[in-house]
């Protein structure tokens, strides 16, 4: 998976490139709009991460040029502005998603994966990790052959974890995916919900599957 990053802030750009590289992507970095447009038109990228405020051509102009040339790769906008009009403008121009700085890197990663996954893999009906099994259609969960009783939301939460195995999921991402709560709040609802899910899924079993990454979020994997 090749990702093109167009970002003029040196530190942000470098860390984005490093972070995406370490997450298993091939990431190229250019630092202005003009290069971004040339690379986007010429290169063979699967996703474009585009800063709005760029020297020369701004992000919107780059996107316009790409869309005009018929390039339909997914585009994720980064901006320090969160005006509704800006968001609408970006989405109108054909951007696929929008992140306001400062954002959590895990959030960016989750969005990147969602964009890359879009329209590709069909959602599977059975999910599993180690001895944990989930029958999505019948809404049933088993671990080590034992049936686990889950509430509807707990099931959705577990399903999200299993579909995103190995990915760090931020609290706000989980809140928006499972509860459709799309604003940051400083409550620990997600923490409490995960604690309860763990009690059912992990407490009496080994290996532990749900892990906390302090300050970043949660990840489901065998450790």
């Amino acid at each position, binding site marked *: 998976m090749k990702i093109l990053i167009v970002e003029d802030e040196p530190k942000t750009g470098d860390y984005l490139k490093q972070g995406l590289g370490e997450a298993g992507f091939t990431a190229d970095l250019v630092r202005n709009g003009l290069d971004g447009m040339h690379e986007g038109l010429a290169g063979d990228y699967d996703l474009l991460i585009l800063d709005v405020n760029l020297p020369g051509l701004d992000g919107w102009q780059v996107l316009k040029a790409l869309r005009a040339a018929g390039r339909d790769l997914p585009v994720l906008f980064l901006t320090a502005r969160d005006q*509704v009009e800006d968001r609408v403008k970006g989405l109108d121009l054909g951007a696929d998603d929008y992140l306001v700085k400062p954002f959590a890197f895990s959030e960016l990663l989750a969005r990147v994966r969602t964009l890359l996954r879009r329209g590709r893999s069909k959602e599977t009906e059975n999910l599993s990790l180690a001895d944990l099994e989930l029958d999505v259609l019948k809404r049933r969960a088993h671990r080590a052959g034992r049936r686990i009783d889950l509430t509807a939301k707990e099931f959705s939460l577990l399903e999200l974890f299993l579909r995103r195995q190995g990915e760090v999921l931020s609290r706000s991402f989980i809140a928006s995916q499972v509860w459709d709560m799309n*604003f940051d*709040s400083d409550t620990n609802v997600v923490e409490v919900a995960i604690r309860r899910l763990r009690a059912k899924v992990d407490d009496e079993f080994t290996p532990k599957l749900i892990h906390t990454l302090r300050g970043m979020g949660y990840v489901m994997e065998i450790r």
Partner: protein
Amino acid sequence: MLPPWHNSITVRLSLAFALLATLVFAALGVYLGGSADAHMTELDAHELHGKLTLVRHVGTQETTPQSMGQRLGDALVGEHGLIVAVDGDSGSIFRWPADGLAGELAAIPNIGETPVRLNINGRDFRIVAGTLTTAWGQTARIVVARDIRHHTAFLDQLQRDFWLALLAAALLTVAVGILIARRGMAPVRDIAHAAGRISAGQLSERIPENDVPLELAELVTAFNAMLGRLEESFNRLSDFSGNLAHELRTPLHTLRMQTEVSLGKLRSVDEYRDLLASNLEEYERLSRIIADMLFLAKADNGLVMPQKESVELRELCRHLLEYYGILAEHLSLKLDGENLSVQGDRLMLQRAIGNLLVNAIGHTPPNGRVTLVIGQQDGMAVVSISNTGAPIPADALLRIFDRFVRLDPGGEGSGLGLAITRSIVLAHGGNIAASSSERATVFTIRLPLNPATVAV
């Protein structure tokens, strides 16, 4: 460019006084002058007619023109300024005074018994004329005239004196008017002085309201009320910037301290990881405060434009209860009421009501109760969120929607939640209120009902 006095109330008032006084005097003068003139005219007419009668009387008694002239001459001895001419068919019968103007006057035609004023050789005369059938059987024409110089001179003098008096009165009125107006404006100057003393540092000063004239009382009251509001906003603002600095400094201080200490010597990877994770938490806190502040700053400037859509309140509340209910294991949560819809931004309303719900849950002791009721009143949708728990003190209740106000200092959260809730509700054209008693603490949001549903 208008002259500087153009805007002076004192000058304007005194000029207006003077103008009014002049007009009144002038009107009076014109009226009195007219009266005097009419009176003089009447006196003259009376005298002229008297002389006319005298001439006719003599004319009917005397039998020759000579004897008539003789007798008229005797009768008019001592009359000065009187001119009499009697002309018969065959020439002049009588002239008084014998030479001079009498002939000239006698030649003027078309004069009847109504006195006429004429100017001859620069002298004013009033003239009447009549006819007479003499004793010797002739028809004679009598012309009687009076030199009215002493009357006109009197009137002229009167007018001159009058206009001089008028001018003096006008000047006096201006002078006195200025004095009166200045005195009258003194309270305004006092107010201006008092207002001038007030600066940002002394917003607690007020203009004394007891000695103020009735007409200015309203102005002073309004001005003082404005000062009150200013003082309150100013105090809030300085509290606010103090709080903001504190709020931003605390995480920055933590970040700096722990990073500095950690870098002070070589540490294990786990310790570094711990440090970075802790830093991450502080960054998150900072970034949330900034986002909230930005939201509030925009709301203050009316930049928060809710994306209007129809929002079902019951569904929204149910959704919020499902989410935040996770935090309320030991409480009983209840949602009650009608299914109403309002126009607004779903995300913002979620946030506004969500904040209240989180607060309610957080401040309710175990086994307490949080109740959400949706109803309507006076065309507004009313969402009230009540919880059992320690009542909020009355003074805290007053400030509860201010920024950075926390009931429990040092507690979780930035203290911006309720301020944000209030901004959102206001941006939706609604209002918010809080009340608290031993039994329950209630927050009530009122939002304009969706017009479509009101019509049904």
